[in-house]
């Protein structure tokens, strides 16, 4: 693991939203060219981590280095440049532009960022759509797509500019098994074919384990486990194992912290 | 095809705006093309304006030939100075033209009425009208009437 080069490197990240501390000195490296799944209980701010890496949120302190650039210190213009050239992000809902059809959605980044002639844009768009298997759906509107198709179109759109890093925000949520299978296959294929660095936020243990090279477990504002799925399943600490196996009680208690049950019941009488 | 019709409708919208503006200009406000700029300014002292406003009409024989553009107090003489724009085509006002502040109807707006004199020289831009007659102020009129009555009695 140490031999691998880190594409995204986070050091001592602290981030709070209002009064609530979300990350407390988080440090992690995401290796280049691999799929890393970021997992953890709901509400630990996994999506927030993606937004921090994308520069949409600013950390309170700490450093986030993507492709050798310190994201929080970039000027607005440089940040847009970095996103344009290096990053792609797939949102949970797909986030397709509702006023454009499938073709124009995928063409959007190309038309905005390049001066390519329309014929070349057409070729590129059809290539990307073919990759996600939706070349035939080019004239549909986003409203006519199913959830899985919308996500595949969005995937085609996020790889339109050939990024080096792609971030998936909950790519499996709310999909039927077939669509889920398609997305899993696409993520794996794209990673192999394009040599992408992929970050994937999910709580689907099974799917994540099946495609991720590494798992990164986040809880309580810190990384509690990092390694290949196999390593973590067997060698991780109790909390890691509880999460991966989906046990209802363990280091993360079933009960929300409360006074002793017996005392509480008895105290009711005095009320 | 659909895009073409969108642009077409927006174009129609713009044209409607321009048509509305043109109607406003010519049909509603009676703007005529030669109106702007073709004026010259003359000034006049008045003892009392009695409610004359900026933009009041300047008329001769009942025809509007200009507008009041500026009103201020002459501090040396304690009298009012009125500047008015006269249409360029009325360029033959003699230098002894007289100006009076008149009222349109009993309670109507005040305007300036010009009456031409006998001289052969004409007023030019920036000239003063010497012969002026102030507004009739109703209170003064009544006061004078009562005073006369009292003297008689």
């Amino acid at each position, binding site marked *: 693991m140490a031999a691998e080069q880190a594409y995204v490197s986070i050091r001592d990240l602290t981030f709070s939203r209002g009064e609530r501390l979300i990350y407390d000195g988080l440090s992690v490296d995401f290796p280049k060219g691999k799929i890393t799944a970021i997992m953890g209980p709901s509400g630990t701010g996994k999506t927030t981590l993606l937004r921090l890496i*994308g520069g949409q949120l600013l950390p309170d302190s700490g450093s986030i280095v993507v492709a050798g650039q310190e994201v929080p210190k970039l000027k607005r213009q440089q940040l*847009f440049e970095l996103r*344009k050239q290096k990053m792609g992000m797939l949102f949970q809902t797909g986030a397709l532009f509702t006023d454009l059809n499938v073709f124009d959605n995928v063409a959007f980044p190309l038309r*905005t960022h390049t001066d390519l002639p329309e014929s070349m844009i057409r070729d590129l768009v059809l290539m990307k759509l073919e990759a996600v298997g939706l070349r035939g759906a080019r004239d549909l509107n986003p409203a006519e797509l199913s959830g899985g198709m919308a996500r595949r179109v969005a995937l085609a759109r996020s790889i339109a500019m050939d990024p080096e890093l792609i971030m998936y925000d909950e790519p499996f949520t709310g999909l039927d098994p077939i669509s889920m299978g398609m997305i899993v296959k696409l993520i794996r294929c794209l990673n192999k074919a394009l040599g992408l660095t992929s970050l994937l936020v999910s709580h689907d243990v099974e799917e994540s384990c099946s495609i991720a090279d590494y798992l990164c477990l986040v809880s309580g504002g810190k990384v509690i486990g990092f390694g290949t799925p196999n390593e973590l399943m067997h060698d991780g600490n109790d909390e890691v194992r509880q999460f991966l196996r989906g046990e209802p009680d363990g280091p993360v208690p079933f009960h929300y912290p409360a006074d002793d049950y017996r005392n509480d019941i008895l105290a009711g009488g005095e009320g | 095809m659909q895009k073409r019709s969108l642009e077409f409708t927006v174009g129609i919208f713009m044209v409607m*705006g321009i048509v509305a503006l043109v109607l406003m200009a010519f049909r*509603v406000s009676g703007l005529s093309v030669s109106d702007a700029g073709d004026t010259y300014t003359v000034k006049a002292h008045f003892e009392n304006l009695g409610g004359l406003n900026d933009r009041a009409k300047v008329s001769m024989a009942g025809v509007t030939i200009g507008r009041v553009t500026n009103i201020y107090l002459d501090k040396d003489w304690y009298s009012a100075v009125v500047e008015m724009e006269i249409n360029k085509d009325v360029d033959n006002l003699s230098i002894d033209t007289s100006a009076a502040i008149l009222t349109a109807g009993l309670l109507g707006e005040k305007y300036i009425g010009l009456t031409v004199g006998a001289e052969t020289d004409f007023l030019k831009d920036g000239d003063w009208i010497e012969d002026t007659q102030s507004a009739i102020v109703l209170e003064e009129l009544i006061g004078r009437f009562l005073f006369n009555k009292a003297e008689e009695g």
Partner: protein
Amino acid sequence: MDRIRTLGRTGIGMIESLGASSMLLWNSLMWGGPGSAGFGDLVKQLFSVGVRSLSIITVAGFFVGMVLGLQGYTILVDFGSEAALGTLVSLTLLRELGPVVTALLFAGRAGSALTAEIGLMKATEQLSAMEMMGVDPLKRVITPRLWAGMISMPILALIFSTVGIWGGAFVAVDMLGIDDGAYWGNMQASVTFYNDVVKGIIKSLAFGWVVTWIAVYQGYASMPTSEGIGKATTQTVVIASLAVLGLDFVLTAVMFGGV
């Protein structure tokens, strides 16, 4: 004590959103003229902001003009000066009702639609997606809408006044039998292009700017939930209407004097 704290927090919140909306306005206008996001986008927005409001503006203008004609007639006829009806209708429309009523209708029709649209784009992460593609949503989404609002509003107000004046003429000349020449002649004698028409246009420009600004800000700053969007839409109509009426007083005082 609690009440004072609430009051203070509300005050700070208001100043914060004023600052945030000013920055939004500054950033989206400084970074691009009307065509910065492509001329096509501006045309598209002109269609959804301007053309879509046209029918309500035309119908409302016609009725307002007719009502002004009727009401004015019943008052003026007592003084025997019903010939001044044209003046009354045209000045009222050009100086006041044209810009103001158009702005209020515009806030309800186009403003709320703008807020809902932008709020929905935010809720469905379209704005975030744009940012992550390295496209500035201010430039791409907000700027063309702001310009479209500012361009549409004076046109709509002019159309409103024009239709209203002809509506007044319909009532006065065709129904009440006022002399055609008196209606238009008195109007032309008392309406001046610079003082009435142009100042009315200035007013509607200002209103268009304020309404669109409030609408896009409310959408952009809305909570990305269905409840939040609903609230933001209501806020747009309420705040924009009040702002229009307040600004109208200020502009009237400055331009038509008296204060």
